């Protein structure tokens, strides 16, 4: 099997803010086709700075990032925006137009697409996120948060970026809304081939949806791999002040009884319990 060519390659990336604060230190990271990644770590660990470097808003102070073969240091924001989209944590920090239509059309107009193409992109993006026509003339500000988030995602999708980074997609949502948003991102990933990166503190969501997890702490990457094996590294998680989901913690505390440290779901836990219990009876 051929290994897919990475879409994003970050090499020895260091980022320093003008005041001298180092927010990223020697980051090496790749994102490839088929990736659905959770980026986790404490507030201030560098997750958002990394995202802004990946979409070219920030340029690395040292090292380089190649996106689709283009070096972000020498690539226009316009070219970057159609490759890597970043959805803000708080949709209100991103939305500024007075109608849903104008909000979604803003990006395509900005890259000077012809009018018919803009319209097609807006309709398509709205349909993908499940916004119906009745919302087009509404003011985004007056929509419920879940819908505002969809408008924010649609306005990014309208630029058709191959990779989409969503910052805290489930914050302020109830559990059902969180699952709906994550199912929606999964559909974008599976049906339309987008590379998806979510930044989140919600570990049960990570366990359920992200195949790969990148753990950051102190401006560096502490772990990067399949979610199951990252969650199994209890020492590294503790160093980053990250607690895996409850069910994973339970399995880890009972590892000596035969439970796998990388247990990700209640279902997996029940299956292990039953086979261990059967073995004890035998």
């Amino acid at each position: 099997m051929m290994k897919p060519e990475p879409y994003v390659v970050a090499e020895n990336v260091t980022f320093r803010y003008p005041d001298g604060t180092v927010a990223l230190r020697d980051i090496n990271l790749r994102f490839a086709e088929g990736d659905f990644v959770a980026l986790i770590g404490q507030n201030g660990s560098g997750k958002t700075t990394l995202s802004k470097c990946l979409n070219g808003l920030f340029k690395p102070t040292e090292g380089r990032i190649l996106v689709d073969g283009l070096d972000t240091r020498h690539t226009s924001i316009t070219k970057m925006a159609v490759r890597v989209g970043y959805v803000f944590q708080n949709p209100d920090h991103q939305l500024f137009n007075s109608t849903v239509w104008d909000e979604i059309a803003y990006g395509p107009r900005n890259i000077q697409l012809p009018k018919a193409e803009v319209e097609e992109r807006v309709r398509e993006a709205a349909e993908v996120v499940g916004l119906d026509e009745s919302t087009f003339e509404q003011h985004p500000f007056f929509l419920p948060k879940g819908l505002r988030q969809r408008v924010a995602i649609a306005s990014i999708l309208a630029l058709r970026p191959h990779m989409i980074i969503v910052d805290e997609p489930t914050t302020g949502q109830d559990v059902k809304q969180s699952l709906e948003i994550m199912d929606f991102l999964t559909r974008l990933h599976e049906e339309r081939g987008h590379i998806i990166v979510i930044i989140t503190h919600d570990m049960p969501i990570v366990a359920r949806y992200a195949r790969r997890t990148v753990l950051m702490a102190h401006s560096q990457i502490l772990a990067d791999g399949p979610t199951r094996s990252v969650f199994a590294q209890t020492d590294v998680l503790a160093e980053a002040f990250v607690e895996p989901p409850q069910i994973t913690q339970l399995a880890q505390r009972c590892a000596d009884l035969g439970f796998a440290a990388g247990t990700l779901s209640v279902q997996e836990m029940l299956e292990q319990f039953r086979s261990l219990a059967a073995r004890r009876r035998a």
Partner: protein
Amino acid sequence: MSAVIRFESYTWRYSRTKQPALDAIDLEIEEGAIVGIIGPNGSGKTTLAYSINGLIPRQEMGVRKGKVYVMGREVMAYTPAELCQRVGLVFSDPEAQFTAMTVEDEVVFGMENLGLPIEEIERRLAWVVPLTEIGPLMDKPPYEVSGGQKQRVALASVLAMRPPILVLDEPTTMLDPLGRRRVFQVLERLKREYQSTIIVIEHSLEHLIPLADHMVLLYYGKVLLADETEPFFERLAFLMEHDVFPPGVVEFFYHLKQAGEYPADAPLPLTVEDGTARLRELLGGKG
């Protein structure tokens, strides 16, 4: 135990909507209890909080029926000043409550309004600042600190007024896991050391459950279930039908119980520690 808050067939409908946000609510909250209020967004959780501190009906247009008693008196019978000495509300959007130019002024503002002497203000600052870990922020404008820090500042400024009843509307949404744990540790201390009555509206059940004495499920304007925390989660199938998803340990033992693999009369463990101990017993001794 006496009820420090009592809703009696309380209904509130906002003028702008047809359906009541809260519909014939009967609910009692005991003094000194920590009560978790859960339910989908749009179920009336924030409306319930505003109805306790009097923002409803004072600041909202709508139709009110029934009664809400706070410490034995109807909410409408209090002046706003009297009520805010009894009920402290931490908003889900901390910026909504900020008025001052520095974090320190923000925390002091409420105490000054209570007319506290300077020595008492200083005493309370010395207590609340380390408790909420806002020391390094004191000179900064409250709207310039990070989301998680804003939530801690909002909490500090309400705690400084030492209200006997504390209502927190999603106090940890912007916090990372460590910050979240810290907030719940603060609540635990308040309960233990000051016997505060604390009402927490929260989606993240993992930290709430070990702390909460009672749980209330609000579902589109109705109280569908209110009970002590452990029996509340014995109704897991019912809860899941109403979009409540429990932490993994509770769900795991619930399934074991359903399948007869965990004693029917044993309580569901509510923490990882409890769950670990029960699991070791089930699989035979210390393993």
